[in-house]
């Protein structure tokens, strides 16, 4: 039985839109970027998060590390609630939780050498290490992520995107975290480099026993790396299932539509497949539809969908769906 390391309970991240009000005593409207997501992450597994742009994937990732203010909910990390932790205590916890960013070059300080960049977490969390020890660790880490250690004194602008992402990975892994959140780590890279970086992540995960939360909007990349996949729509989790179950037997109408749009690498099949195209646009997260947020675009919608908000409910051991019609 796998051990859960992180449990997220009804997490909400709402941003008040203060510039939308004329007087300070009015309550500002809120943008509901993440609106009640619950999930459990097990030790050593990879959880993929997919969804279209603006569905709250990145907000969820940042909220899990408390890089954003959390409106409501709990994040239980190894038995401790991160939401209630003080500033100092949270800072200490950060050595167990690390993050890899979307834009490889923008996430590296242009004025620091990559040696300094990779060493930064060590400097923060292990100030007792001597300079030589730090350098040795950095070189070792650079070798691990496939960088030549003799480029330690170079600057970020002297590297390619893929190399910069490796530097970002090295920085995240050097203090041996237990969980790494990857916020679209490969979407800024071209396809061959994507494969290298994803495979590197997989190798390092196996070697170090990491848990990963892997965010992407590329369904095939997520399929390659994940054990389980969470599908998000407008700040809500709509389906959470094992990779096999989700890709072969999607239950939620949104997941079905999403998967039908994945290109097939065979021109014959690609020509014959039908995409069940969703009508309409993504509703505004400031004023989401009542009940099921997907009902405005759902091909199978019924009157009852607007009554109450569906929760993620298990339909079998590996599969949870949030849809009133299925439950």
């Amino acid at each position: 039985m796998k051990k859960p390391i992180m449990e997220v309970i009804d997490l909400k991240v709402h941003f008040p839109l203060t510039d939308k009000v004329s007087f300070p005593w009015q309550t500002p409207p809120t943008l509901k970027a993440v609106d009640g997501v619950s999930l459990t992450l097990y030790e050593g597994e990879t959880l993929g998060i997919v969804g279209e742009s603006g569905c709250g994937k990145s907000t969820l990732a940042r909220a899990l590390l408390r890089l954003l203010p959390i409106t409501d909910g709990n994040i239980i990390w190894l038995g401790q609630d991160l939401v209630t932790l003080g500033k100092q205590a949270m800072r200490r916890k950060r050595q167990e939780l690390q993050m890899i960013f979307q834009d490889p070059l923008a996430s590296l300080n242009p004025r620091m050498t990559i040696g300094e960049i990779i060493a930064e977490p060590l400097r923060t969390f292990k100030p007792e290490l001597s300079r030589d020890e730090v350098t040795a660790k950095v070189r070792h880490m650079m070798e691990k992520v496939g960088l030549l250690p003799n480029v330690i004194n170079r600057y970020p602008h002297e590297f390619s995107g893929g190399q910069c992402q490796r530097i970002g990975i090295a920085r995240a892994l050097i203090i041996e975290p237990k969980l790494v959140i990857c916020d679209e780590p490969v979407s800024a890279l071209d396809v061959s480099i994507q494969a290298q970086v994803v495979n590197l992540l997989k190798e390092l995960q196996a070697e170090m026993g990491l848990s990963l939360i892997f965010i992407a909007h590329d369904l095939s990349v997520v399929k390659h790396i994940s054990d389980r996949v969470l599908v998000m729509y407008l700040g809500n989790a709509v389906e959470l299932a094992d990779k096999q179950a989700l890709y072969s037997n999607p239950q939620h109408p949104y997941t079905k539509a999403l998967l039908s749009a994945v290109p097939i690498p065979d021109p014959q099949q690609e020509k014959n497949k039908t995409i069940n195209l969703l009508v309409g646009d993504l509703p505004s997260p400031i004023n989401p539809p009542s009940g099921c947020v997907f009902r405005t675009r759902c091909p199978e919608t019924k009157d009852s969908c607007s009554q109450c908000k569906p929760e993620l409910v298990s339909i079998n051991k590996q599969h949870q769906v949030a849809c009133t019609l299925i439950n």
Partner: protein
Amino acid sequence: MFMSSKLQTVDALISTDADIDGRSLWQDARRRFFANHAAIASLIILACITCISLLGPLFSQWHYEDIDWEALSDISLLGRPSIESGHYFGTDTLGRDIFVRTMQGGQISLLVGILGSFVAVVIGTLYGAISGYVGGRIDNLMMRFLEILNSFPFMFFVIILMTVFGRHIFLIFVAIGAISWLDMARIVRGQTLALKNKEFIEAAHACGVSGLQIILRHIIPNLLGIVVVYATLLVPNMIILESFISFLGLGVQEPMTSWGALISEGAITMEIAVWQLAWPLAFLVLTLFCFNFLGDGLRDALDPKDR
């Protein structure tokens, strides 16, 4: 044959474990700066002016307070610039040597310019960076405070200082320092706002780096380019400001002088003794030009995109 040997050298270089040194953005900027002839020439001229101002008085038989009684009898004739009399730049209406006085005034003017902008840089950068990084209500408060200070009429402030505490060189620093950091703080705050949402700041935050360390280690080094440029362009402003105060007669106290005070005195007698105006004016104009060219050169070097 030649190709292959070259390739072998490259191979050897790659395979050795020697660390390859990268070229930082600073080194890039330095290269671009040294390619800018106007800026380099300005730098050399400024260095010369500074040296002359500091060392020049040693090569003259006169002291800046000394009155040449002989020349005083007929300033327009005996007070002319000449090598024989020892008054290389001539004398002023009181028979004091203009060369030594210009040098001494240069010391004061450069000191005010450089110290004034140094004060502005230190206070302005820290104030602006903290205000921009912290944001929210504190940012609002800090900026409103700055606006209140900025709305204070500068000359009024100087006159009050001078009448209450008397004329003193230290008060000029206070007066100039008090207003000059305001613009600096604004500029730095704006840059910080642009920087603080960059991913590398978020990455530092995720790595558990504390707020102060983020400001010192990540924000300020990235601001420094703009700060350096602005500081260089601030020096001539400071000098002009000091000259302006001195021109109005509120600046340094006699017998000390500054370029502004010398110009003010020279302007009265420019019809009969033009050298009394010409020499300090020439030094002032040259210095201002050089600082401006230097600032332009630095801006081009540090900010190649904005050209």
